[in-house]
């Protein structure tokens, strides 16, 4: 029991610090792309600290309980996801059956709570934001799950994160096959939507619907949403590395370095996509995910199944 609590506290705080640092990296790189200087390294920490010290306003039109509860549940969901993922990557042999499915559910929680909080705030901008968030969730969830299923199929139908890591340690990364490569491309684009980064940030379009879902949030509640978002930014690359890229390979001393390299590549991709793309409309987003990425994910799954049936590991 004590070790569970310790794992949770360590993983959640560690992920929070990592996520805030990554958000700073994101802002700094964006500033450099735009030929600016950008914020100092402690900026994101100061932002959270400041919001914690500000007034927490609840609008008169809001449904108070749901409005105030939503950010807490979102943060808690991110914390539990952090505990499961870091535990799986540190001690793969101790994972429980079906933790991949639990992680998929828990990763929906922040988006779900954003919708709940926005709907509870009683603001028309927030209502538009919530409806967009819901459509976004519907569009990226299907290709995401199909892409994860490719890795599950290739590692011998293991729904355990630890099992997936161990199978990859024995038989090579999922990424090194045709279906795995297709699947990780789909998963990276879904990650971008899940993080609400630029081509898919239509739920909180700043200049269009005034920060959308977060329009009525202030002070500590807003800080909790920001922390939850920062933790997701740290967790999504981690999930992709576990599922497609072999997890933490510690066969030799450079294992930790290769892990850091993989992590850096995925985070850099998020920033790169964010800085080179304009925002899409919601109908374009839906078309992109359902008619663009879902067929690719299905193709990857079919290739993986054919590869298993015919005994061709490269397929």
């Amino acid at each position, binding site marked *: 029991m004590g070790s569970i609590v310790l794992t949770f506290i360590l993983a959640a705080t560690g992920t929070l610090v990592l996520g805030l640092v990554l958000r700073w990296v994101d802002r700094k790189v964006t500033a450099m792309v735009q030929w600016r200087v950008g914020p100092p390294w402690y900026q994101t920490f100061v932002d959270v*600290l400041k919001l914690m010290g500000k007034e927490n306003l609840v609008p008169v039109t809001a449904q108070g309980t749901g409005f105030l509860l939503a950010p807490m549940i979102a943060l808690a969901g991110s914390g539990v996801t952090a505990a499961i993922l870091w535990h799986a990557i540190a001690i793969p042999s101790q994972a429980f059956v079906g933790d991949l499915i639990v992680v998929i559910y828990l990763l929906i929680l922040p988006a779900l709570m954003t919708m709940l909080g926005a709907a509870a705030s009683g603001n028309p901008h927030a209502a538009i934001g919530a409806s967009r968030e819901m459509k976004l969730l519907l569009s990226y969830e299907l290709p995401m799950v199909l892409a994860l299923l490719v890795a599950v199929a290739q590692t011998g139908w293991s729904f355990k994160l630890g099992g997936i890591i161990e199978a990859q340690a024995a038989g090579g990364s999922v990424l090194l096959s045709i279906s795995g490569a297709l699947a990780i491309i789909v998963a990276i684009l879904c990650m971008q939507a899940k993080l609400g980064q630029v081509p898919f940030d239509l739920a909180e379009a700043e200049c269009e619907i005034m920060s959308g879902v977060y329009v009525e949030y202030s002070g500590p509640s807003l800080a909790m949403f920001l922390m939850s978002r920062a933790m997701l930014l740290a967790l999504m690359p981690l999930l992709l590395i576990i599922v497609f890229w072999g997890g933490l390979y510690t066969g030799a001393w450079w294992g930790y370095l290769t892990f850091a390299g993989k992590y850096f590549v995925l985070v850099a991709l998020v920033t790169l996509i964010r800085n080179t793309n304009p925002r899409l409309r919601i109908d374009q987003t839906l078309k992109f995910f359902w008619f663009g990425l879902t067929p690719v994910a299905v193709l990857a799954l079919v290739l993986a199944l054919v590869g298993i049936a015919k005994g061709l590991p490269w397929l």
Partner: protein
Amino acid sequence: MALKMWALRKSLWVYHVNAGACNNCDIEVLELLTPRYDIERFGMILVGSPRHADVLAVTGVCTRQAMPRLQEVYMQTAKPCVVLAIGACANAQGIFTEAYHMGLPVDEAIKAVDPNAIIIYVPGCPPKPESMIDAAVKGMELLKTL
């Protein structure tokens, strides 16, 4: 308390309110985001909602139509917050002082709902971006005394 104020000074989020400006000051406010001035160096960003803001950058003469909205936006802002009255119009209604469509000047309109509001005046038509940065820095110094 000191930590809270330090954090507030290092991360001022600005919400821009147009209370009937001719758009000239607004262009100068947007100038602050460009590579030449880049206020994100000091942790300042423009935000889309007054709920997130620490600084209200008010431009314009504050017309009769705009005044109740300005007061409402001020009350919606999470305290503590600072009001920047940007431009000659926002400071003292400029050349429109005697016109029929004027409400109260920006500072009086805000003092009417909160007598203890912190208001910083940035004169000029339009003020230079440098003077706005100077005003923001003075606002930070003022917050230190709270």
